[in-house]
């Protein structure tokens, strides 16, 4: 009970802090709506007051409304004057992407200061420069819009997608960007077995690969042997085919659908010889050409690499500072004809640890930071905002549960435990034994939404509001009744249930990973306390992150805790909702291997309902949108009813949704979509952010 009280006092404290600084004025209808959505009646929560109105920049797609004349940043104008750069109208494509900024036309200049945690923190930068994706999502996260590609055409039979590029679009070194850059990537990288050993699922339909063809200089065709209606979403999503150069050509990755052919060719054996490129690699200190070419196309490591992003690396990520500078050939302009981005430089400084990063954020050493800024620090963030001059904004995510108890449906090490994990009523009882309100107050400051793993009601795949609470509210009585019914009625002296095979107390292991955005281990400890009331003994095991994944790949876990982020658009990122991806399958690695290999490897699930969900998922890619929506809803119904993944609290800003925004910055949406496929803050178009003075 003490934890409950603690939650309330913290909320009181938060409210006081907010009142003291006058933010109560911000509490509008949105917070009320949010509180109601949370199912907590009309009492407005402070967190709700920090959640603004969803807004974002608008695209001007009608050429008649485009600006006729272009202007540019002073630092580029100087270069033009000095003859080092062609004038701006020769650098911007004849068909630019015209953006109406969310609030106003900005002004040029300034350095955007941020913090990062080292070479593993690429996401920190590539989410900001993700305007190099072929297609993208509108700021609402629900509609596909143009990006690098000006326009697209999905064939009626679903067997091809045509992309139309922008006339006059150039790489950051001034060389033309054309369909040949796609052909080069497809033929010389994707089909090269040494670089890409197996075809990628994102570019396949029912196990069959697609192809890329050049139609003319600015038209590219993606063709498939079977209907692939999902492919547009894949191109717009955070996927291997649509993620763009910045996300998929770094860290040894080989995907991304296009590449600066004119630059990369010099490192590829096809265009000279293997000896020649190996010699180059050795001279640069690499073991061979493969390692070298992967380094050369890594935008974070190689400042010479031509890119399409708004900023390009000048000081590589493996330094104490990761710095980027504007791309003089960037393809976006605002409605007044100013070439974007507004901000000259991005500078990230290395923080060896997250406490320092958070303290620096509080100290005003960052201009805009939504990554690594922890929700648990919210009271301190609020306390200092007026002194330092920043605002705190919360961006709730759309996924159902930030701490999801993923039961291993292929577990077999302990037959007794396996039997219970594979029993639906057992899982339902576990779920009903969790007091989600207590978790919400303690770890989510009361601003999360308790319930199942179903995504937000605002997303198309949500199966209906009744599925939020299905088996997912505290009901100790019913949980106990279910456990008695399935055959776990015997208890020991301390009230814990005994195993049916007579080997003592039934113990369930909760595996958590250290270093996640959300304190999973502490959450697990609280669930452990709550389960005492239903007589279930849990053992919380926190392990280092890579060991956590090793265990899951080894099928060693009983229940693992992880967020189910990405499931709001199930087809683009299913791995936290369904066991379909062997790279990460909390619900059972052997099942994912079975699914991915078409039954050749792994283990077929025994549960008929789970099997049905997987079969449904397999048919979805070839279906048009309305059918796909129905299938996804059906899958969520099966998954929630079976409680394979037990949801706790979600739709919260806990993962990358706590934004610290300097008051000097303009065009910052008061709320932005926080989702994997939107590359947050990507859909808010960081190229339109600016410094007011």
């Amino acid at each position: 009970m003490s934890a409950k009280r603690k939650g309330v006092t913290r909320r009181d404290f938060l409210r006081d802090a907010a009142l003291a600084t006058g933010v109560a004025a911000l509490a509008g209808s949105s917070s009320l709506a949010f509180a109601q959505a949370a199912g907590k009646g009309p009492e407005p929560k402070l967190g709700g007051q920090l959640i603004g109105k969803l807004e974002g920049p608008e695209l001007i797609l009608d050429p008649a409304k485009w600006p006729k004349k272009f202007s540019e940043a002073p630092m580029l104008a100087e270069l033009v004057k000095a003859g080092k750069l062609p004038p701006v109208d020769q650098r911007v494509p004849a068909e630019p992407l015209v953006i109406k900024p969310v609030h106003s036309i900005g002004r040029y200049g300034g350095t955007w200061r941020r913090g990062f945690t080292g070479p593993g923190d690429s996401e920190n930068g590539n989410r900001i420069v993700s305007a190099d994706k072929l297609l993208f999502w509108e700021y609402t996260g629900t509609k596909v819009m143009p990006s690098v590609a000006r326009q697209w055409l999905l064939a009626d039979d679903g067997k091809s997608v045509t992309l139309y590029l922008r006339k006059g679009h150039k790489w950051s070194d001034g060389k033309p960007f054309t369909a040949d850059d796609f052909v080069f990537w497809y033929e010389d990288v994707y089909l090269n077995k040494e670089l890409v050993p197996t075809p990628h699922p994102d570019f396949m339909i029912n196990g069959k690969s697609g192809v890329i063809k050049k139609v003319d200089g600015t038209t590219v065709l993606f063709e498939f042997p079977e209907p692939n209606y999902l492919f547009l979403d894949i191109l717009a999503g955070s996927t291997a085919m649509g993620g763009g150069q910045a996300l998929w050509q770094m860290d040894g990755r080989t995907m991304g659908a296009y590449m600066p052919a004119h630059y990369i060719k010099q490192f590829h054996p096809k265009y000279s010889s293997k000896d020649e490129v190996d010699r180059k690699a050795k001279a640069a200190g690499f073991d061979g050409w493969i390692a070298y070419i992967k380094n050369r196309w890594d935008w974070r490591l190689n400042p010479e690499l031509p890119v399409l992003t708004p900023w390009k690396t000048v000081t590589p990520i493996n330094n104490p500072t990761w710095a980027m500078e504007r791309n003089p050939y960037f393809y976006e302009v605002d409605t007044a004809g100013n070439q974007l981005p507004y901000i000259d430089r991005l500078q990230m400084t290395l923080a060896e640890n997250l406490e320092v990063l958070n303290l620096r954020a509080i100290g005003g050493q960052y201009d805009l930071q939504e990554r690594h800024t922890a929700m648990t620090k919210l009271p301190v963030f609020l306390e200092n905002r007026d002194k330092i001059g920043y605002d705190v904004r919360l961006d709730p995510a759309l996924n159902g549960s930030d701490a999801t108890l993923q039961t291993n449906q292929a577990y077999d090490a302990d037959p007794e435990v396996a039997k219970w994990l594979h029993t639906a009523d057992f899982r339902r009882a576990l779920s009903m034994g969790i007091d989600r309100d207590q978790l919400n107050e303690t770890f989510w400051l009361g601003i999360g939404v308790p319930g199942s793993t179903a995504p937000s009601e605002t997303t198309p795949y949500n199966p209906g509001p009744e599925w939020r609470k299905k088996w997912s509210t505290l009901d100790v009585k019913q949980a106990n009744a279910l456990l008695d019914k399935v055959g776990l009625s015997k208890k020991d002296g301390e009230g814990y249930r005994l195993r049916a095979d007579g080997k003592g107390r039934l113990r369930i292991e909760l595996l958590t990973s250290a270093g996640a955005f959300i304190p999973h281990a502490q959450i697990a400890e609280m669930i452990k306390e709550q389960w005492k009331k239903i007589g279930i003994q849990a053992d919380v095991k926190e392990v280092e992150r890579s060991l956590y994944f090793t265990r899951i790949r080894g099928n060693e876990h009983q229940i693992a805790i992880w967020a189910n982020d990405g499931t709001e658009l199930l087809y683009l990122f299913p791995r936290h909702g369904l066991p379909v991806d062997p790279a990460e399958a909390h619900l059972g690695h052997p099942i994912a291997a079975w699914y991915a290999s078409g039954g050749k490897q792994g283990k077929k699930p025994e549960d008929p309902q789970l099997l049905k969900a997987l079969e449904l998922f397999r048919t979805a890619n070839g279906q048009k949108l309305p059918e796909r929506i129905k299938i996804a809803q059906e899958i969520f119904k099966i998954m929630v009813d079976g409680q394979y993944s037990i949801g706790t609290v979600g739709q919260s800003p806990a993962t990358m949704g706590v934004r610290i925004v300097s008051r000097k910055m303009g065009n910052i949406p008061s709320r932005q979509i926080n989702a994997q496929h939107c590359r947050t803050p990507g859909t808010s178009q960081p190229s339109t952010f600016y410094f007011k003075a």
Partner: protein
Amino acid sequence: MLAYLVGRLILAILTIWAISVLSFVIIQLPPGDYITSYIAQMSASGGFVSEQEVEALRREYGLDQPMWIQYLRWMKLVMQGRFGMALEWKRPVSEVIGDRLWLTMVVSVAAIILTWALALPIGIYSAVRQYSAGDYAATLVGFIGLAIPSFMLALVLMYLGFTLFGANIGGLFSDEFVEAPWSLAKAWDLAKHLPLPALILGLAGTAQLIRIMRANLLDELRKPYVVTARARGLAEHRVILKYPVRVALNPFASTVGYLLPYVVSGSIIVSLVLSLPTVGPLLLKALVAQDMFLAGTIVLLLGVMTVIGTFVSDLLLMWIDPRIRFESRK
């Protein structure tokens, strides 16, 4: 004497070799390898890695080979002074460690000097003025220093620094100097950032040394030779400083051996908290990412430092303590 030194030197080299084998083996012990942690990282950013790609990556990094081949590969690189590639940093290990090693030395030496500068006089004072008010005060402060975990002290001081003085948080340099080439201005910037970490790192050790110094000196002060010296009318400061203090210094000299590596490895958490660009946080990250070349090199360096330190402390002891000198002559 020379034979003694040569013998020690040969032993040192053998020890270093043993350390290199051990460090490599220990780093390989936990399940998984760099590719596992690479996949973990990839998963977090929404990436996909197929089983075949995992195999190809293992081949590319040479992780598919038996451990002893990997060890020989690494040793070959070490002999060439290259230490291999830091997998996560995608840069040669020597480059990644480069500046950090010197900064570590600077911080460590500053901490050691501070420790000694505080511990010696205070220790002498509290021994000579045993049970005086000053002795109690020093003891109290010492115990507080010993009792507070240094990472907590670091956090508290950093927070106070921020709220009271608006000081720069963490790190050894101001933003504008992080990437700047070495200059007088940069060195001055470093000097300005140095006292806080040196104080935090030094404080725990100071308390310990005060106690040791006090106890040792008390022992010595009661010995007949001191009584004799005093009876002969020698000035009090000479009575104390000439011999008793010198003998009591023994523990200072004999700890030099592990002081160096201790300040490097024992300071990992403080360096993390203060975000110091030293070797400590690098080692922790390398271990977490199972970046064996980087972690191995750092552990090896720590080993070498211990060996060198022990060697130095042997020499120091011989110089301070005549009894040891006589022993080695036998």
